[in-house]
């Protein structure tokens, strides 16, 4: 018997939810760090190329796979790939998408909770007075449980994690229209307002110390981001870093865009929708994300120190350096509060999306109610987050982040593009993307999707395998005390992957010959019977 699937309440709600899915911590933390580490203005050129040749095509593919799968009642990748490719293997390949989103949400929720905690610490001025990098770094690591200098134990971090986890699952339990869409309708406008307020503040900072450092100013910071050095364009590393950033920022390779798109109606536009959501994300990244962290850091610390901060990573920039700046500006507690709350909003609109594929999978393949499916996923994720909190200092999270949040994303995207453009067929795929479209997509994208996007992905996969995956797999340069915990992290991820494979196998056996969703879709009329 066919089950009625939810639909989005409005097109605006859908676009904001999709944009919320894409706009995450990476827009405000990872992007400035990547730009800074890869030549500043030079990075922007390959970044924009990758957006057009990799990002937009992948967004169209994921939206299209999702809407197509949704009409057969599938909200997760195993079912979606199964209807695209009549092969016994297809559904098992869908495991990778559920795996990435499920593992990422486990550690992402914890990082998201730091933003909530630091917004509280900002407004209460808890870290005010800690004006050196070392002190602020100790404050962060103490909060994470690595030392007891500022926090006697891990409980504050645990409580904020618990609050974040409960908010996420409260939203998810409400469902797509009443939960995720409502959250996006509130959180996304707020996020943009907070970010615009921060950008205005950055532009009005000028030169904070004109006597001692007259050349440390916001304009220098903007110049660092936007002045390209054309001689560096031949560096392949910059092109790969830019392509990698496009991946993260648009949330492709996780199956979350497809999961959201599965709730579209058959004739709903995806060509315009994907572009609109992608450009909202780019507005958040290139205009807002690029204008806050790096320019303000250059104004307060100069270019050389800012580059060193960026080398220390995204958390070093967002949770150590910026709080020092907030302490040195009037009403810094308010701007700090806005900055971290903005990160929290960016995080939560993404994390709810990550839980959606596995919840849909359990609902649709095992006939579970929304409440039951959400409770089971919640329990699994809760166990995972506890492991992340307890073993954080031993690299447990880093290991998960690399294999699921970096490497597996490219694998998922490559699987999607090959099945979509080469097995399902680009002719059918092109029709699918253009069905109900309110804009005309230039035909050149037919060839971009078929040839250039897979080539781009293959290049990223090969280079990441050689540069990073092999050394990371062999645990080169990893302190000896971390090795057992990193293996524990790997074991946990393998357990999740095998568990999902088993569930896929069991679900298809269970539904064999049953009156499944597939049978209820009328291909001729293009509607559910």
């Amino acid at each position, binding site marked *: 018997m066919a089950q009625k699937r939810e639909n989005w309440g409005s097109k605006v709600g859908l676009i904001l939810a999709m944009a919320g899915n894409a706009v995450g911590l990476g827009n405000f933390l990872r992007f400035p760090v990547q730009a800074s580490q890869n030549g500043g203005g030079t990075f922007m050129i390959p970044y924009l190329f990758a957006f057009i040749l990799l990002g937009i095509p992948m967004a169209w593919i994921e939206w299209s796979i999702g809407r197509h799968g949704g009409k057969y009642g599938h909200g997760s990748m195993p079912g979606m790939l199964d209807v695209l490719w009549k092969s016994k293997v297809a559904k098992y390949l869908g495991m990778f998408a559920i795996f990435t989103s499920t593992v990422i949400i486990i550690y992402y929720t914890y990082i998201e909770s730091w933003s909530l905690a630091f917004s509280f610490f900002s407004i209460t001025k808890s870290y005010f007075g800690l004006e050196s990098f070392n002190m602020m770094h100790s404050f962060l690591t103490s909060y994470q449980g690595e030392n007891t200098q500022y926090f006697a134990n891990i409980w504050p971090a645990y409580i904020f994690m618990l609050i974040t986890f409960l908010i996420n699952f409260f939203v998810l339990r409400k469902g797509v229209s009443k939960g995720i869409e409502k959250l996006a309708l509130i959180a996304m406008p707020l996020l943009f307002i907070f970010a615009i307020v921060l950008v205005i503040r950055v532009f009005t900072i000028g030169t904070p110390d004109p006597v001692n450092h007259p050349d440390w100013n916001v304009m220098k910071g*903007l*110049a660092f*981001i*936007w*002045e390209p050095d054309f001689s560096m364009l031949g560096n392949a590393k910059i092109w790969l870093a830019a392509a990698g950033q496009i991946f993260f920022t648009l949330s492709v390779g996780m199956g979350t865009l497809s999961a959201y798109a599965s709730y579209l109606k058959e004739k709903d536009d995806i060509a*315009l929708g994907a*572009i*609109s959501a992608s*450009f909202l994300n780019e507005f958040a990244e*290139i205009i807002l994300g690029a204008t806050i962290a790096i320019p303000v850091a250059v104004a307060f610390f100069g270019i050389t120190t800012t580059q060193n901060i960026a080398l220390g990573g995204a958390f070093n920039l967002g949770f150590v350096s910026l709080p020092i700046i907030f302490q040195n500006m009037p009403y810094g507690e308010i701007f700090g509060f806005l900055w971290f709350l903005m990160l929290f909003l960016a995080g939560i609109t993404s994390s709810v999306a990550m839980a959606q594929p596995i919840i849909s999978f359990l609902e649709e393949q095992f006939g579970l109610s929304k409440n039951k499916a959400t409770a089971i996923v919640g329990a699994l994720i809760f166990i995972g987050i506890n492991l992340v909190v307890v073993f954080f200092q031993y690299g447990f999270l880093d290991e998960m982040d690399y294999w699921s949040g970096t490497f597996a994303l490219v694998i998922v995207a490559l699987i999607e593009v090959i099945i979509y453009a080469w097995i399902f067929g680009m002719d059918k795929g092109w029709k699918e993307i253009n069905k109900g479209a309110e804009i005309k997509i230039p035909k050149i994208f037919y060839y971009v999707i078929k040839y250039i996007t897979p080539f781009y992905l293959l290049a990223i996969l090969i280079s990441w395998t050689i540069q990073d995956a092999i050394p990371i797999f062999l645990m080169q340069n990893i302190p000896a005390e971390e090795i057992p915990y990193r293996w524990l992290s790997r074991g946990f991820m393998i357990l999740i992957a095998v568990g999902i494979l088993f569930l896929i196998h069991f679900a298809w056996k269970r539904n064999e010959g049953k009156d499944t969703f597939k049978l209820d879709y009328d291909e001729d009329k293009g509607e559910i019977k």
Partner: protein
Amino acid sequence: MSISGWIFMIFSWAAIISIMVYTFAKVLKSSNKDSKQQNNDDTGNIIEKK
């Protein structure tokens, strides 16, 4: 910032903002059209029932 930096920044910002506003306005317009259609359908149903 050098002239090339300014040109690159202004061109990128203008392109992103104009495409974002254009596509989002198109979505809004289409969303309004859908809700009008929905209202008309609902009114039609009520009249038919009466």
